[in-house]
């Protein structure tokens, strides 16, 4: 029970952090079809900006300014880069963002150095909120939950209550229709890309001091975000939300559950015997491969249900 409760909380926190990152990418990927490899770079930039800003004027302004800065950069990238590349096809766009990720990493290294920067949790939030069975639950994690919940609410309202939100929502389901609706497509795209980047930046601001702010943080966070987005399904923020929490919880519980994938598959009706291909892999205890589970799930869901959890169309 003790382990369960604490793991649940941990899983939620991690899942919500993933969601903050993935929600932006879902918007971008679903609407523009861009596999944005620079998304995790925006996460990193958010953390570094917040670090620098918080050194001068404090954490709270940074919480607002850093995402705005990231959003501005995102808008600039879309207007002066991606838009040009768009007509050259999706692979070109993907490579564009890939090149961007390389450049951002190097620029970050040159600006802030190669070693981690001391981006710390603000003093006002650096206390244990409550204690569960002897494990402290830091207030900052509660704060992360709060911010991400607020953000989820804000996106939801933005999508359902504003004009551009409704356009974006329509476009999420039928991207080919945006133009037909007579809207200013480039402006919608810029808005979406900027918003997505800003969301990643926000995730960086509150994730950077929870984790460690270093030049490799984008590199390590990149693939998992794709997994969440594709798993949740294109065009569905709700799917993305569920997938994020699911991935957070799966990875958290995988650590505390000493079972093998074979046992998990049995649950779904597959029996793994020594004759099964890769049985050596499948019978490894879960904690050892917990972090790989998302990739297994990714492959499985794409093979059997290519539209993802709640996607509106095939990936």
């Amino acid at each position, binding site marked *: 029970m003790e382990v369960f409760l604490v793991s649940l909380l941990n899983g939620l926190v991690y899942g919500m952090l993933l969601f903050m990152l993935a929600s932006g990418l879902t918007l971008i990927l679903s609407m523009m079809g861009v596999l944005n490899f620079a998304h995790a770079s925006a996460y990193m930039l958010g953390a570094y900006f917040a670090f620098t800003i918080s050194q001068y004027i404090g954490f709270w302004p940074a919480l607002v300014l850093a995402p705005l800065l990231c959003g501005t950069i995102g808008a600039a990238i879309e207007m002066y880069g991606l838009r040009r590349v768009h007509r050259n096809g999706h*692979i070109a766009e993907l490579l*564009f963002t890939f090149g961007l990720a390389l*450049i951002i990493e190097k620029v970050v290294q*040159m600006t802030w*150095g190669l070693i981690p920067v001391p981006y710390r949790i603000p003093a006002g939030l650096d206390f244990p909120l409550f204690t569960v069975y002897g494990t402290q639950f830091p207030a900052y994690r509660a704060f992360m939950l709060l911010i991400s919940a607020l953000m989820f609410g804000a996106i939801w309202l933005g999508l359902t209550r504003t004009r551009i939100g409704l356009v974006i929502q329509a476009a999420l389901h039928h991207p080919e229709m945006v133009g037909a609706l007579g809207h200013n497509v480039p402006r919608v795209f810029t808005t979406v890309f900027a918003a997505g980047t800003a969301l990643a930046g926000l995730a960086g601001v509150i994730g950077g001091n929870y984790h460690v702010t270093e030049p490799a943080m984008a590199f390590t966070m990149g693939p998992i975000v794709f997994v969440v987005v594709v798993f949740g399904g294109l065009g569905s923020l709700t799917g993305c939300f569920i997938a994020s929490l699911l991935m957070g919880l799966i990875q958290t519980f995988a650590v505390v559950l000493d079972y093998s994938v074979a046992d998990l598959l049995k649950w779904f009706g597959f029996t793994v015997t020594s004759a099964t291909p890769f049985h050596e892999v499948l019978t490894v205890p879960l904690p050892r491969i917990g972090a790989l589970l998302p990739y297994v799930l990714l492959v499985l869901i794409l093979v059997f249900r290519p539209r993802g959890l709640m996607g509106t169309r095939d990936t």
Partner: protein
Amino acid sequence: MSADATQRAPQGRTLSAAPGSAGLARRAWPWLVAIVAALLLPWLFFDWSTHRHSGFALTMLSEIGLMAIFALSFNMQMGQAGLLSFGHAILFGLGGYCAAHTMNAVKAGAMWLPVELVPLVGGLGGLLFGVLFGYVATKQRATAFAMITMGLGELVAACALMFMGFFGGEGGISTDRVIGISLFGVSYSSSWQVYCLVVAWTAIAVLLMRLQTQTPLGRMANATRDNFERAQFVGYDPRMVRFCQFALSGFFAGIGGGLYAIVYEIVTFDTVAAAKSATALLAAYIGGAGGFFGPFLGTIVVVLLQSGVSLLSNAWLLYVGVLFIVMVMYAPGGLVGIIAQHAPIARAGRLRELIVPYVRILLPGAFSVFGFVLLVELASFTTIGAAQGKAFKIGPQAVDPATAFPWLLGAAALIGGGLWLRLEARGFRARWDALMADAKAKGVML
């Protein structure tokens, strides 16, 4: 899709008649020239004072050869079949592991196989895993395919570290290419002998891949790339086409991996890692995925960047990033695309008239590149390189990066060069348009 002719160039000239001996000779000579050139190239780096080949140059050229096979096999999926894979390196690496294990078995006397055929074992290994992973991955196409291959890539890379038996863990599988069995009585103890083997296999693999594009499967792969639905209604199962193409490309990737095992005599988890897959993607795109030989050109550029420029500057990744962005923005057809754009003008016989305009834009271009490189190196030097105890030099002249002069020089070269380039580009564009219009008028566009 951009409408430049490059994308179609390879399909544009199909010979409908059976190749006569004259036609064969005509088509064989570029291959022979290329092979001879490849064999002559290392002598440029030969050290006549010690009578030794440059091991560095040979290894680099071998790397180009085997990576070219890898990039071309990647392009069998991306360029030919429209399948963007993020995990192609697993086929390359697993082929390499198979080859390494085989060489060890031969060395231990457990089996008989000449060194020359070891890449073939790598190829069969690649084929086997291509069949295995292809079965899963080719159930889907487009983004779903890309994501499945990404997932498979991550999984295999992680397994390569975890499972000692086949992968040898972090240390990888090391091997010895001097196994004493050779078809031609060669020991392969010197890099030069290995390089010759690499050239031979590269020629064979490239030729086979080239021929594969002209087979029913290769053609239908193009067809499913263009319009997978239509392919169904001419009787083809697009999934099966994808699957066969995937498995075959695994075969060739495996040959590359087998050569890797021979050249480096060790295969580690890095060969299956995402970075290797990315290299193939970059090579294919830089060179031009639309043409068959694009990835070959791209490989040369990428290997030189990775192994050459990285020796000169630790900001090389930044240059790579900038190169890609510039390429995707201004030359989506890759290097082959740029070259092919000149074809109509060349056919109109007026290519010579472009020399002066080119010089006029290359000059300011070089200026702005110089400014950009200078600024990046300065920034990199002040934040990272300074403490390595070296002086910052522009040519032979040492410069103090703490002063404003080099920065101003860099900025001036970049901005000035950029503005000048803009000016010259207008003239160039006018000249270009005029020549293209002429080509059009002469009816030599296609």
